[in-house]
């Protein structure tokens, strides 16, 4: 018998997953006082009152039972209208839209719905930490393609094409990107679309930051001609509507794919929380103005923060979306982890080391600028002091 009981009970797949690199930092940062945290991957706004109030009202009126597995039909209709209005894509609310517990669940469902054992899924790093483990949990093999900081972390279709094999089932993209803030241009999306068609691939498009696009409009890959049929579009309310804790996202996909996701969802989850769905309904009906105000506020803070980073000697491209700056720290001679740990201990500024998001993130740190302007100014002051001491 194996004396290590953990190995006995926990599945080999789960045991093989790396623990999230963020965890250690979280523990360290939480143990210190007076920390300015630029490590948070969520808005600094509290959900707008009209959304909270609508959800409270739904509770007062007793809407506390399950909804349809796919979510309230009213909400799916609003999501369809929203996707048409903002991103010029058409989905049928009855059969092609699924309300999920956060965009994270939608990504999990998408992968589980399409991956056969041994299928390969291409993940472009640096990326959100969940893609790779979710591919593994779905029984697939993640194939990592590295975006390069030298190219502003743009998608390199040629690199992706080199990674494609007969087993490749799908590519996961995230634009605007966490952690780099990079927005994929329509030209890149078109190039990716050509690859998908040529090699018969699906694209899982994580567009959770779509509302936080600062230069021009967000382009969904589903809107690229020919791509609607091979895209699983994933988004949600967490970032744009400042509703992270509500855990509410959605997926839109052609009927065959969406119904497969729904099949898993109805066994594994039943439905997304009802009171959160009522909040989301209000968000889509009346929330646009507040989203715009938040977007303006992030854009101004981005401008300030990125200009300041470059000024104090941390080269950083101007991110087109999300609320992250991803400056290079390579010239300091420190690794991302060393830099982040020393910055935290010596100046009490928490950032996330870039390698957490994949090896191509090494040499970078992720700083969220979803903090008050006062905090950002103080953080810049401390980082400047830190750099001068190095």
């Amino acid at each position, binding site marked *: 018998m194996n004396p290590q009981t953990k190995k006995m009970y926990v599945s080999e797949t789960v045991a093989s997953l790396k623990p999230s690199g963020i965890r250690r930092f*979280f523990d360290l940062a*939480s143990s210190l006082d007076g*920390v300015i*945290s630029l490590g*948070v991957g969520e808005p600094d706004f509290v959900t707008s009152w009209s959304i909270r109030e609508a959800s409270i009202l739904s509770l007062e009126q007793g809407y506390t039972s399950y909804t349809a597995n796919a979510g309230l039909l009213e909400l799916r209709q609003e999501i369809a209208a929203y996707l048409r209005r903002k991103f010029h894509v058409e989905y049928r609310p009855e059969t092609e839209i699924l309300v999920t517990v956060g965009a994270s669940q939608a990504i999990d469902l998408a992968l589980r719905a399409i991956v056969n054992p041994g299928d390969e899924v291409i993940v472009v790093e640096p990326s959100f930490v969940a893609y790779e483990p979710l591919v593994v949990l779905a029984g697939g093999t993640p194939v990592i393609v590295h975006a390069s900081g030298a190219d502003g972390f743009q998608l390199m279709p040629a690199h992706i094409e080199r990674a494609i094999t007969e087993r490749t089932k799908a590519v996961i993209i995230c634009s605007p990107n*966490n952690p780099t803030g990079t927005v994929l241009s329509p030209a890149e999306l078109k190039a990716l679309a050509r690859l998908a068609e040529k090699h018969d691939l699906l694209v899982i498009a994580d567009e959770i930051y779509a509302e936080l696009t600062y230069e021009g409009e967000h382009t969904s890959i589903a809107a690229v001609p020919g791509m609607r049929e091979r895209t699983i579009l994933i988004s949600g309310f967490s970032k744009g509507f400042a509703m992270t804790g509500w855990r509410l996202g959605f997926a839109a996909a052609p009927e065959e794919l969406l119904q497969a996701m729904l099949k898993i969802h109805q066994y594994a989850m039943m439905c997304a929380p009802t009171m959160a769905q009522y909040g989301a309904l209000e968000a889509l009906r009346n929330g646009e103005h507040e989203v715009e105000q938040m977007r303006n506020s992030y854009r101004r*803070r981005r401008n300030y923060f990125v*200009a*300041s980073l470059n000024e104090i000697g941390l080269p950083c491209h101007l991110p087109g979306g999300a609320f992250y700056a991803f400056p290079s720290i390579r010239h300091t001679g420190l690794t991302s982890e060393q830099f982040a740990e020393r910055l935290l201990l010596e100046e009490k500024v928490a950032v996330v080391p870039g390698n957490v998001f994949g090896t191509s993130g090494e040499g970078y740190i992720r700083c969220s600028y979803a903090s008050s*302007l006062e905090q950002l100014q103080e953080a810049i002051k401390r980082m400047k002091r830190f750099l001068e001491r190095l």
Partner: protein
Amino acid sequence: MKLSDKELEIIEILEKDARTPIDVLAKMIDLPVEETEALVHKLEEANVIVQYTTLVDWRKVDGHEGVTAMIDVKVTPKRGVGFDEVAERIYRFPEVKSVYLMSGAYDLSVVIEGRSMAEVAQFVSEKLSTLDSVISTTTHFILKKYKHDGTIFDKGDQDRRIVVAP
């Protein structure tokens, strides 16, 4: 006066925090400091930016005495000058903090600050009611200020986010 996008942004930022340092403001709107300064100056000159003030929570100040009243005033408008003449007669009093022309049941909404209710009452009966055009007044004393000009006095929204998250 038609404002540019940058000028509108300056106003939006300064309206929330008039003490935003000029270098920070310049970075936020992505313009050089000198150019930003020039735009602010232009907006000040044109009286688009009229004044920079401070919002004070006087309840926190020990020994501060003062009352604020909102007074609904019905008046008879005058031929040729409408409500403007009587409004001017009212807003020139220093104890009058604001005067608005209103639609609805009364004409002018007048906000008055005084050291005591008696002082406000005296102003209303001696100065306001006695004006020729004034037909009637209804005085409402403010008991507590919860929110003023978009700012909530007791801020309950502290940052509840966890320190590091993906």
